């Protein structure tokens, strides 16, 4: 042991006395410091995400150093003729290899350590809870160490395997292959995610791990199995290094070393089996989506829907995350389709166990995401019909797309993502939850042709067996015996979110933001801004109070899949919530404030940036009603926040001169109250508060009426 320690000390001495090597870890820490110090408005302040992105890029670069170090540790003496005396010393080859490896590993650990220290410093300053910080630090540190460990071992084996300086070229290629090439040209192209574990830096480009709300908790089994395999693989690389060294310098234990390398290879192969099985199961899930409806949007029957008055849903999570659901739908009989079966849409991963109509069991058929009831099973009478569907299954709806795996819906432990658009309860009609485009799956967006906007209905949901708090697009409260109850009237659906989430609210009746803990400082500031806006309007306008009361701020496009690429304009209303996607530049900034104000005052998804038909149109082609709506926001930005006209206009959206000029003039004269009066009159007269959903169906307001309103002097 004393010999080993001295060998290790010797290697450490070389590493720590080299000025360049000495400088690199602090430089790495400093770069992370700079990155985190720059977090702030107007960009996202997601600390976790910033640290994750840094690990994805800078750590990948530092792996280049790790592979070089593996080469250098052997090439500096073992592979140099002048150091042959080393081979004649009575030192075990295992000791020599492991001491070098341990020294290199200790050196590389500085990168992980400094990154952790910088992250911890910023996290404490931003008030990230201590237990969560420790979990984050543990995740990043383990991930770093595993990456450095395997890369260093790879460098060492290449040093002995490849003669001369060619080893550097081969190592460079190995580094590029193990990071970028494997990721982009093998895994992404062929959707071979079962090779993820061979990536030297699995954080590079992974969109699920990048999400603080679910990330490593959701993929904990992947990570655990992958780490076991990588550890066994690293052991194999080290065993190969030792065996190769014994071939270079004769040793009595050479045969044993070869056997040990073979055993380590067998161990690595065995360690891969559970990891591979994990992926086999996911590909099976994806294949079931293909079987569900062929996925080809061209060959589908058109979507049909019928109204529902009310839902009463009970959803229980059982062992192994198996869900048991009971959904009672009250349907107006008059709205049911005439002729042909009555079709409901329920996620294919949920198996229907029983269907009752008005309390009597009826036969049903299931095909993919669809549940068919014979029309004759439902009474042909006026009034309402109650359809009760019982179902169960494990919902871990995995899909692949180029460069990223995705989850359309899941329940795993406390991690919950159940968007209404993935039919975790029966949706009334024949809809298509996903479409297969050449090469990848697309999750249907609510309001689109595959999944039209759901007619409003009353909801009552009882959740049971979920270990953590679950948030929904409607308000909820704790029920008896660790249950949670959610109720709402006239909402288009119910989506559930659970995981590493927190609720940010400043005033008891104020705006709420549901986000992951790293976004809390940004969310607090945003909530304060929204509360201020609400107070501003409440003093003179009788706007609906329950709309957009909460913002669900998560890195997924509204109703999209976890792991999707963030899309521009990714926000929308659902229930009483505004779903806002999160990325570096799609965050809780002034644009999002405008969205919330707009959604609250006018409802629907016709937000300034959302109304696709109106985007980029010249002012004279934008309906006057829409311009007047924007004028409300414009007024707030100018009068409430004191913004300059240009800046306010940029945020509020295009407003024609005819609408804007009288407002500007009144404001210039200090007559903000007059502007409020005019706008309020239009708001009430044309019922601008109703959620219309599409700018083109806005009420027609004659321009003369607008002009006339300004002629009246107060």
């Amino acid at each position, binding site marked *: 042991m*004393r*010999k080993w320690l*001295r*060998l290790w000390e*010797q290697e450490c*001495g*070389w590493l720590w*006395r080299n000025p360049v090597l000495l400088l690199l870890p602090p430089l790495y820490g400093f770069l992370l410091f700079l990155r985190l110090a720059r977090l702030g408005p107007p960009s996202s302040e997601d600390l976790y995400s910033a640290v994750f992105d840094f690990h994805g890029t800078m750590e990948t670069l530092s792996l280049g150093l790790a592979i070089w170090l593996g080469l250098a540790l052997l090439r500096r*003496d073992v592979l*140099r*003729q*002048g*150091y*042959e*005396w080393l*081979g*004649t*010393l*009575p*030192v*075990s080859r295992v000791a020599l290899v492991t001491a070098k490896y341990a020294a290199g590993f200790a050196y590389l650990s500085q990168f992980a350590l400094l990154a952790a220290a910088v992250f911890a410093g910023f996290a404490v300053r931003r008030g990230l809870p201590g237990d969560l910080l420790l979990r984050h630090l543990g995740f990043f540190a383990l991930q770093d160490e595993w990456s450095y460990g395997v890369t260093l071992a790879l460098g060492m084996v290449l040093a002995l395997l490849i003669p001369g300086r060619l080893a550097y070229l081969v190592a460079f290629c190995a580094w590029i292959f193990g990071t970028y090439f494997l990721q982009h040209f093998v895994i992404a192209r062929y959707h071979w995610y079962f090779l993820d574990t061979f990536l030297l830096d699995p954080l590079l480009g992974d969109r699920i791990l990048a999400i603080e709300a679910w990330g490593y908790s959701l993929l904990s089994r992947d990570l655990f199995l992958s780490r076991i395999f990588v550890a066994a693989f690293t052991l194999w690389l080290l065993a190969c290094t030792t065996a190769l060294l014994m071939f270079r*310098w*004769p*040793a*009595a*234990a050479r045969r044993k070393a070869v056997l040990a390398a073979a055993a380590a290879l067998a161990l690595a192969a065995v360690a891969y089996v559970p990891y591979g099985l994990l992926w086999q199961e996911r590909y099976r899930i994806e294949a079931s989506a293909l079987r569900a409806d062929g996925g080809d949007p061209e060959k589908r029957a058109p979507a049909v829907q019928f109204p529902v008055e009310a839902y009463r849903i009970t959803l229980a999570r059982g062992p192994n995350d198996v869900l048991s659901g009971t959904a009672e739908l009250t349907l107006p009989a008059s709205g049911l389709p005439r002729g042909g079966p009555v079709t409901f849409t329920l996620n294919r991963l949920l198996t229907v166990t029983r269907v009752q109509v008005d309390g009597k069991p009826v036969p049903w058929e299931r095909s993919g995401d669809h549940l068919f009831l014979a029309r004759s099973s439902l009474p042909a009478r006026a009034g309402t019909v109650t359809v009760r569907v019982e179902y169960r299954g494990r919902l871990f709806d995995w899909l692949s797309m180029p460069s990223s795996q995705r989850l359309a819906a899941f329940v795993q432990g406390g991690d919950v993502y159940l968007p209404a658009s993935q039919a975790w309860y029966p949706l009334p009609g024949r809809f298509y939850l996903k479409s297969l485009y050449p090469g990848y799956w697309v999750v249907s967006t609510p309001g689109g042709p595959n999944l039209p906007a759901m007619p409003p209905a009353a909801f009552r949901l009882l959740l049971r067996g979920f270990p953590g708090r679950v948030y929904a697009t409607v308000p909820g409260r704790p029920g008896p015996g660790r249950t949670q109850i959610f109720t709402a009237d006239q909402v288009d659906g119910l989506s559930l979110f659970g995981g590493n989430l927190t609720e940010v609210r400043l005033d008891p009746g104020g705006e709420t933001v549901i986000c992951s803990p790293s976004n809390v400082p940004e969310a607090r500031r945003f909530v304060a801004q929204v509360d201020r806006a609400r107070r501003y309007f409440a003093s003179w306008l009788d706007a609906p109070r329950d709309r957009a009361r909460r913002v669900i701020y998560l890195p997924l496009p509204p109703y999209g899949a976890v792991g999707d690429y963030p899309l521009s304009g990714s926000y929308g209303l659902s229930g009483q919530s505004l779903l806002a996607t999160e990325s570096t530049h799609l965050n809780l900034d002034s644009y999002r404030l405008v969205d919330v104000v707009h959604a609250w005052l006018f409802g629907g998804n016709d937000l300034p940036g959302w109304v696709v038909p109106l985007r980029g149109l010249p002012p004279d082609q934008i309906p006057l009603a829409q311009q007047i709506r924007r004028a409300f926001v414009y007024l707030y930005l100018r009068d409430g926040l004191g913004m300059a006209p240009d800046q306010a206009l940029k945020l509020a959206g295009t407003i024609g001169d005819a609408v804007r000029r009288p407002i500007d003039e009144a404001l210039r004269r200090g007559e903000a109250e007059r502007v409020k009066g005019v706008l309020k009159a239009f708001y009430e007269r044309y019922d601008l508060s109703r959620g219309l959903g599409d700018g083109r169906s806005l009420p027609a307001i004659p321009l003369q009426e607008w002009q006339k309103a300004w002629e009246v002097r107060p």
Partner: protein
Amino acid sequence: MIEIRGLSRRYGRRWALKGLDLTVEAGMFGLLGPNGAGKTTLMRILATLLPPTSGDALVEGVPLRSRPDEIRKLIGYLPQLFQVYPQMTGGEFLEYVALMKGVDDPRARRRSVEEVVEQVHLGEWIDRKAGTYSGGTRRRLGIAQALIGDPRVLIVDEPTAGLDPEERVRFRNLLATLSLRKTVLLSTHIVSDIESSCRRVAVLDRGELAMAGTTAELADRARGKVWEVRLAESELPEAASWQLVATRQEGSEVVCRVIAAERPAPEAKPLEPTLEDGYLALLRARGGEPA
């Protein structure tokens, strides 16, 4: 003692050593041979750095092929090219080597280092970084590391190459002293190094053992074949066909020392052969060119 039995080593298709049988007894043993004769290959095999293709060797009775790890405890090795971690001082390096050689007790280790430092006259350099050492000092450090742990067999490959005459003499004397109680295998192509310190010698040529015996026996290989011929300067080109060992100017004449089976010129005088003469005569007789 080293007993070599049928030792061979092949690199690709080329045999660097072919069926070598040789016994190296205690004391100083010289290994001579031209470049490419297989000296360094043999030294590296004996130093456990290279596995033989076939054959075996017993080092102090320990078989090389099956127990190389044990042999490492018995030998000290100075390679032809010796480098050392430049950031370490000589003292740190020797302590490091001593520990690797199993001198666990710190006091014993320090004593061991002091002894070898004294032996190789490295005292004034011992606290300086090895990266600042001259070639000679570095080789002294090399022999010091080989001596650490008091090995029973010392294998030194071209130890005097690149040293100034004074250093060379000092080195030869040191090796001669060490050979009193160890087996010292000295490989060189500088015949005078062997002449002055070795009692027994072996000559390798193209991977084969050309001769093994005492230095006198090697010198005897040239007995009756060494001549002194005096030539006028203008006649010197005639000597191009002779195997000249040495030439020197004396007045208007050039005195040539020639190896030839028969008297090269009528006025040639026979001379007493030296070791170098014997070595050259041996290689000439084998049809090879000495280095």
